[in-house]
């Protein structure tokens, strides 16, 4: 059995829209989402009436235990279709991890199977009032009883453990992470819609920040925002009649089930081994090898993910990512480097949960990146979440 995707390069992105990314949009998330969706549909040269598929993931990635309200703190595909006045044949929500690649997979499969002709993929992120991860829990029930009474709780503790494990095992220093964060902020500062537009971060400022969950400091974490992005998918055949150069989906992979762990416990070996296995499936699915990729966009919701993805994808040897970055290996302005954060990532845009990675692949491969356009950009990978937990999609400029 071949691991190659039977519908490789048969479905394409044909349009997009990205809202401004702000700490607070000043209006309801649903209104921002409807505007962004209409912009994306218009960008693709289509009308709302032609959109017959809607896919998304509506998770609010806060540990605060908040109740969510559709149209206000989250926006589901059902809500969006209803408020656009669309009559879809296919609507689906992805409830796994790696929310954006997971949503894209639902959309690609819907188009490839004929379940829908034109699918809108969206992601709407909200920054709720109050402390983002603050949780008023008084009683720890279910899975939380094994960790919360001890004070192990939330995504910063989650990432701090494997990050520190990495530092100890490979002799890395947390100061080396400045190369990741400064690179993300440099690129994000060039992006007009980014929360960090015109606001790069200096190495000195990074190093001066106190740690929150050692070795993690505030700049290692993406900032919660209000923001929405939308993309339109259709078949390669229909894409020929639309205004923009299509960007094809060559293949995808999501992480396989890992061994059961305590909640939010991600030992380093799970990440590196699970990530490498995911990458092997990804290359097989897309029918490529790692060396073919000239625009890998790694996920960076927490900066250590950049090291983990570089190693999982085989872009540098295991244990070497910290040196690879320190030696300029990911400097998007340097010839011969791998521009893994050229789109600014989450650290350079705000907590858009995989959107900057996908958007950079689309903009560069469709030749729509404007003055950020890179000459050599034929094959991209958009990653989301941890390599052992999330997923990735391979995009191609050619069918």
């Amino acid at each position: 059995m071949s691991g190659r995707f039977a519908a490789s390069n048969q479905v394409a992105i044909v349009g997009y829209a990205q809202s401004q990314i702000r700490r607070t949009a000043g209006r309801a998330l649903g209104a921002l989402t409807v505007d962004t969706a209409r912009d994306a549909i218009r960008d693709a040269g289509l009308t709302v009436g032609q959109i017959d598929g809607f896919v998304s993931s509506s998770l609010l990635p806060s540990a605060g235990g908040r109740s969510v309200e559709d149209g206000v703190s989250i926006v589901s595909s059902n809500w969006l279709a209803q408020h656009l006045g669309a009559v879809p044949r296919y609507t689906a929500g992805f409830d796994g991890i790696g929310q954006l690649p997971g949503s894209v997979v639902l959309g690609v499969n819907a188009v490839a199977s004929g379940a829908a002709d034109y699918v809108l993929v969206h992601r709407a992120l909200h920054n709720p009032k109050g402390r983002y991860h603050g949780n008023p829990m008084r009683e720890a029930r279910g899975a939380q009883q094994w960790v919360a009474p001890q004070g192990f709780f939330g995504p910063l503790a989650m990432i701090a453990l494997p990050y520190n494990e990495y530092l100890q095992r490979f002799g890395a220093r947390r100061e080396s992470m400045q190369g990741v964060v400064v690179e993300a902020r440099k690129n994000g500062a060039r992006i007009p819609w980014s929360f960090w537009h015109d606001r790069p971060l200096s190495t000195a400022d990074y190093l001066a920040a106190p740690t929150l969950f050692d070795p993690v400091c505030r700049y290692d974490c993406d900032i919660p925002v209000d923001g929405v992005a939308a993309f339109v998918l259709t078949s390669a055949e229909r894409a020929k009649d639309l205004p923009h150069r299509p960007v094809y989906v060559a293949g995808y992979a999501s992480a396989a089930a890992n061994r059961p762990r305590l909640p939010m416990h991600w030992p380093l070996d799970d990440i590196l081994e699970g990530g490498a296995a995911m990458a092997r499936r990804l290359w097989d699915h897309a029918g490529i090898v790692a060396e073919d990729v000239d625009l890998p966009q790694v996920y960076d919701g927490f900066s250590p993910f950049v090291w983990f993805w570089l190693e999982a994808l085989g872009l540098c040897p295991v244990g070497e990512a910290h040196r690879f970055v320190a030696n300029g290996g990911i400097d998007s302005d340097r010839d011969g480097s791998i521009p893994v954060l050229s789109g600014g990532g989450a650290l350079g845009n705000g907590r858009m949960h995989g959107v900057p990675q996908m958007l950079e692949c689309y903009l560069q491969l469709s030749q729509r990146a404007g003055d950020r356009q890179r000459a050599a950009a034929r094959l991209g990978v958009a990653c989301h979440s941890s390599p052992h937990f999330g997923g990735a999609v391979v995009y191609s400029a050619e069918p």
Partner: protein
Amino acid sequence: MTTTRPVPVPDEQSAPFWAAAAEHVLKVARCARCGTLGLPPDVVCPHCGSTDPEFEFTCVSGHGAIRSWTIVRQAFLPGFDDDVPFMLVDVELAEQPGLRMIGRLLDGVEAGVRVGDAVVAAFEDLSPEVAVPAFRLAR
């Protein structure tokens, strides 16, 4: 008034674990089918796949080795504001390779720790009825 930390709410499966912890005894679930230890106990044994694992909480030595750690300087849960900064350790228990448990290291954040350092289970008493497993350096 001091806000209290989250209190574990034992369920049918976990009750023996918390009852033992209250006596300052560390127990881990053992699958009755294959004898493998698992934490937390799952619906299905993660080792042999039994859907009827009849997990039994069995005493362990409490000895283990630090695999990683973090110092928590900002609490997201209530009741920890007076405790920060504190150290959490990710421990591999001696009884079984890969058997990992996370708890506080009660030696304080100034205790210089290294990967591989030996620890032994200790307990924090939250109330006369409730104690939470933690660790101390076994030096």
